[in-house]
């Protein structure tokens, strides 16, 4: 019987072969299922989302009980990390919602229009430090709980021979500003003061890049989560997407690749229109991870010889479908998107109400 170390090496090799567009011995399966795992093992979402060490135990217990996974996308979960991505307040189970309801990012205007000037004048890091303290209830201190627990979560995962694939997160200024301003207000800004928005983005970007480089150097992950949903093609005209989204992703992705880390492009909502532009990202170094809204078969056609694709069993199928339906969809993915340059996973995140037998069917489908 293989040791955990041998399993780890075998699975890492499988994943890295897929990322490099090669054909592994079989398609790897690397799920992400934060809230699902909590419900599956009977832990309240209120505890799961606020205690990172518990979330790591729960994620590992859930997935190892459902089959043989090659990796997990997140080694642990901490709800406050969502505020660092979208500069937004949250509704948290057990505090603002019933104990077992799913958390919710609040779509309110927390960042003011004057804040663009503050960023331009003082820089992004200085702005964000104050923003976290004043408007997000000392978020910097809260996030330390997660940061301090992360190396332990990564080790616990590796000790089981499982790859902690993309345990950290980064994104572009668009996602942050849009979340902080609220989508409604941010779109007004793009229409009314586009030059000022771009000036603030251009000040923020070098600091975000440097923060991401430091993160990669400190953590030395195999991959990191890079993405979001607000900058998806379906929410923005081509002209604005090419100005406010594409150049920033190109820069961020290149920095991550330069650090020897794989950027997992966790691109939620519909990006089909602009798939062609993702060919401008480094070949054989990234993973494109759509959520079921982008046409993954079109993605294969356009990106298949350029970028590994990961996905995309839809959330609704995992909640409402049958194991046969899930198995058949996964086999279709494995045979048509794979077997080279493909990693099997859910689209986005396995939802809390997914049926365990459906998740099991997804995990087992890689065996044939």
């Amino acid at each position: 019987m293989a040791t955990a170390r041998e399993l780890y090496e075998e699975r890492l090799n499988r994943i890295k072969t897929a990322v490099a567009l090669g054909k592994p011995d079989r398609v790897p399966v690397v799920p992400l299922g934060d809230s699902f795992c909590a419900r599956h093992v009977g832990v309240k979402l209120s505890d799961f989302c606020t205690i990172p060490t518990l979330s790591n135990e729960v994620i590992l217990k859930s997935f190892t009980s459902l089959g043989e996974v090659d990796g997990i996308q997140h080694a642990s979960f901490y709800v406050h990390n969502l505020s660092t991505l979208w500069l937004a307040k949250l509704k948290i189970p057990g505090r603002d919602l019933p104990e077992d309801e799913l958390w919710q990012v609040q779509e309110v205007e927390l960042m003011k229009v004057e804040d663009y000037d503050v960023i331009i004048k003082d820089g992004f890091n200085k702005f964000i430090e104050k923003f976290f303290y004043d408007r997000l209830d000392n978020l910097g201190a809260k996030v330390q709980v997660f940061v301090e627990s992360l190396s332990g979560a990564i080790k616990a995962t590796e000790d089981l021979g499982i790859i902690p694939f993309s345990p950290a997160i980064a994104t572009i200024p668009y996602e942050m500003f849009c979340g902080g301003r609220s989508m409604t207000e941010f779109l007004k800004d793009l229409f009314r003061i586009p030059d000022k928005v771009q000036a603030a983005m251009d000040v923020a970007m070098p600091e975000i890049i440097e923060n991401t480089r430091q993160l990669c150097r400190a953590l030395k992950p195999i991959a990191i989560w890079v993405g979001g949903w607000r900058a998806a093609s379906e929410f923005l005209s081509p002209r604005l997407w090419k100005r406010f989204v594409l150049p920033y992703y190109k820069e961020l992705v290149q920095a991550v690749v330069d650090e020897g880390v794989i950027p997992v492009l966790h691109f939620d909502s519909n990006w089909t229109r602009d798939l062609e532009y993702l060919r401008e990202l480094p070949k054989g170094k990234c993973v494109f991870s759509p959520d079921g809204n982008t046409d993954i078969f079109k993605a294969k056609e356009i990106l298949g010889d350029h970028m590994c694709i990961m996905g995309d069993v839809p959330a609704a199928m995992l909640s409402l479908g049958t194991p046969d339906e899930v198995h058949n969809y996964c086999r279709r993915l494995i045979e048509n998107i794979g077997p080279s340059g493909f990693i099997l996973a859910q689209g986005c995140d396995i939802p809390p109400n997914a049926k365990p037998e459906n998740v099991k069917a997804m995990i087992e489908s890689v065996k044939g």
Partner: protein
Amino acid sequence: MVSGFLGSGKTTFIRHLAGYLVVQKEQRVVIIENEAGEVGIDDRFLAREGFQVREIYGGCICCQLTGELTLAVNQIAEQFNPDWLIIEATGIARPSTILNTLRKYGKGINDIFTFVIADTGRWEELSEIMPELIFAQISEADLVIAGKIDEASDGALQSLMVKAKEINPRVEVLAASLIKGIEEPVLRRLLQHA
């Protein structure tokens, strides 16, 4: 299903429609609030006004919402068997994303009718910034309501009506202030469509 971009006036519209159905028509109505974190003046005011409301939370994005929504629809059909189920769709989704899941997995649904609320004052701006989503919402609508007309110019209303017809020639467009209420003849007309 009531669709339309964030801030277009969906909740206000639902308040008038549900009120009319419950009070004037004595119908059993359940409302599902399927928003993506959008917080209005009071995001619980429908429940406080005595309507039967089920709220659905979606994490950080709506990709997880459609399954939860369909499960809620099935549960409501079984437990309450209402005459009308009004779903407030998240403003950042195409109606078809939700409709396809409902049609595939939903139970107890006789028919689905899609209202799209368009913000007349911001029509030009939103059409330029996010044409694909706005046009998709119009093209998948059974009826478009040009809302917030008291905040918009006559030209903006005219432009919306012409463009909506171009996108979806079969759709009827009705204009309403929403905030000042909807007159009963208009409500009757809406329900004739549904």
